[in-house]
């Protein structure tokens, strides 16, 4: 038989346990409902977009995705120009942004002297906090004129003369274009990608890196064979984050893309993206026009979803290949 003191202690322990169980349940329940909320909201947005966009799909059918005509006067809408604009500007942004971000992150984690690491790191995070309209205005007032006068003529005269590829580097020297939008987007997404990469590179165990150095590896070999394989999921995640931002960016793009719904092969021609078209025409649209703008929104939603899925799939393959080599 337990003494009364022992019984008291046991009782208290049981009490503590049961209240712990209760707390645990509440914690689990609330965490689950927050997670479920995300799914519900996502599904709700999708449903609303689809419902509002339905008149357009019913009216134009598949032609909406294939037509390059956007004519509010005659109520004829096609999505191909904004879709191409969105994909091309984002692609330019990623092609420029990823290597630069990679360089920044490697420099901060591996090469920078200690006194420089923090200021440069903070500066990057501050860049990420600059509102997009500021990038847009900077792009319009400073970057575009400079680019039009100093860089674009040189690019047109050299790259523009190449067979086949040359046509992409044609366009009037006015500075606002698909290409300019891509460059401004690149500058906007660099802080995001760079800071994610830096955080990833910093969690690579020092012992791993030092062992590689001890084996006689160069810095480049350490980066390529140790750090990158260790962090690839996070690195790809950072790139996807940047790409998502580039595809959905509205304000900055509306300033520098030129807002012209015509189809050109030249990257130096003014163009339009899904987000900029929606922002420009939403105010005054009604009926089929409004429905078509919402259909554009749905397409942006789907493109983003597809890109994300492809990235996840790509990661999975990488993971499998990695497991295959290590066993």
């Amino acid at each position, binding site marked *: 038989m337990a003494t009364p003191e022992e019984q008291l202690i046991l009782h208290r322990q049981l009490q503590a346990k049961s209240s712990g169980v209760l707390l645990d349940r509440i914690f689990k329940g609330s965490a689950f409902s927050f997670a479920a909320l995300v799914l519900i909201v996502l599904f709700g947005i999708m449903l609303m977009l689809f419902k509002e966009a339905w008149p357009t799909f019913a009216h134009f059918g598949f032609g909406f995705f294939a037509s390059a*005509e*956007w*004519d*509010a*006067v*005659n109520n004829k809408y096609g999505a191909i120009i904004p879709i191409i604009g969105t994909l091309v500007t984002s692609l330019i942004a990623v092609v420029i942004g990823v290597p630069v971000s990679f360089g920044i992150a490697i420099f901060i984690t591996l090469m920078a002297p200690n006194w420089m690491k923090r200021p440069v790191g903070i500066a990057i995070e501050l860049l990420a906090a600059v509102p997009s309209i500021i990038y847009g205005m900077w792009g*319009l007032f400073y970057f575009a*004129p400079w680019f039009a006068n100093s860089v674009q003529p040189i690019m047109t005269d050299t790259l523009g003369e190449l067979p086949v590829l040359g046509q992409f580097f044609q*366009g*009037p020297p*006015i*500075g*606002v274009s698909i290409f300019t939008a891509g460059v401004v987007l690149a500058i906007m997404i660099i802080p995001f990608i760079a800071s994610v990469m830096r955080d990833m590179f910093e969690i690579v165990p020092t012992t791993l890196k030092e062992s590689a150095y001890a084996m006689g590896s160069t810095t480049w070999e350490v980066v390529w064979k140790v750090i990158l394989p260790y962090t690839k999921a996070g690195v790809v995640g950072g790139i996807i984050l940047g790409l998502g931002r580039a595809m959905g960016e509205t304000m900055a793009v*509306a*300033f520098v893309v*030129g*807002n*012209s*719904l*015509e189809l*050109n092969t030249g990257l130096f*021609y*003014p163009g*339009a993206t899904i987000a*900029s078209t929606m922002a*420009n*025409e939403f*105010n*005054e*649209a*009604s009926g089929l026009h409004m429905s078509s703008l919402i259909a554009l929104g749905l397409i942006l939603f789907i493109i983003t979803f597809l890109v994300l899925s492809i990235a996840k799939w790509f990661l999975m393959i990488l993971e499998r290949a990695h497991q295959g080599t290590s066993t």
Partner: protein
Amino acid sequence: MMFNKKLIASAVLAAATAFSLSAHADEVNKITGAGSSFAYPIISKWAAAYKKATGVEVNYQSVGSGAGIKQIIAKTVDFGASDDPMTVEDLEKNGLTQWPLIMGGEVIVANIPGNKQGELAISGPVLADIMMGKITKWNDPALQKLNPGKKLPDLAITVVHRSDASGTTAIFTNYLSKVSPEWKEKVGEGKTVTWLSKGNLGGKGNEGVASYTGRIKGAIGYVEYAYALQNKLPYMDMINSAGKRVAPTMANFAAAASHADWEHTPAFRVVLTDQPGDDSWPITGSTFAIVHKDPENPAQVKAVLDFFKWSMDHGQSEAKELHYIPIPESVEKLIEASWAKNIKLK
């Protein structure tokens, strides 16, 4: 703590007074409106003066003409304002009535090195050809013919237009449709149209068009007169429907307004472009106020009419200061007659 209690007490008291004020149904001290951004500067200026004179507050939201029409139909505001007049059928269908509240001119601005304000002239058909991309250089024979003796440069033309849907574009394309059958067939008129010239460029708002035109050599665009003045952009003279060369001046805008046939047009649905008269500026437009004919709350609409009557009588100098054309006196009489006839205030 004491402070908090006092604060709460005074807040409760304030709420109670506000409630008792709003309980007087006939005493209107606040009216709301929404729509045209073109009319926003003058309405807000009138509103400030009107509040000083009468104590009635006018709250106007510059959300765009189309949004203004949507809001008055949905009855979320006391009046709507649109640069593009509603059709008679649309007005009937929704139980609405409209009248012009202010007018203004649009000018063609061009960035040609060495070109000063009013030095060059352009005609409607030539302008339409430029906007369609049929004329692509400033030294085109058609432009040279309109400007004998002037040396025009061998410079590519960049067409600048509004990227956002706007009443300014509606008035501009309405004009081009009147003067060019080809434009009417290929492009048409509306708040957003499909621009055909290669490498055309869209700027957001009047300020966007003004800034692109000011920066890009060879650019041509259309903006409201006040924006051309503010940005010191060289505007062009135009050849009007009478075949005369006119400069964009307040007097010529007003001439277009007074030559229009307001009396015989149902619902004042006059678009002031391409009006007859030797001194009429061809691209003139007006903003229309829209209210319900048989309002749920007649006192509010009465207050709206009082405000616009006051602004027609007392707001002329303010309108001119901001480069708008006030409503001509003859038209004011027509407007008041239409109020008496169409709007049920009891």
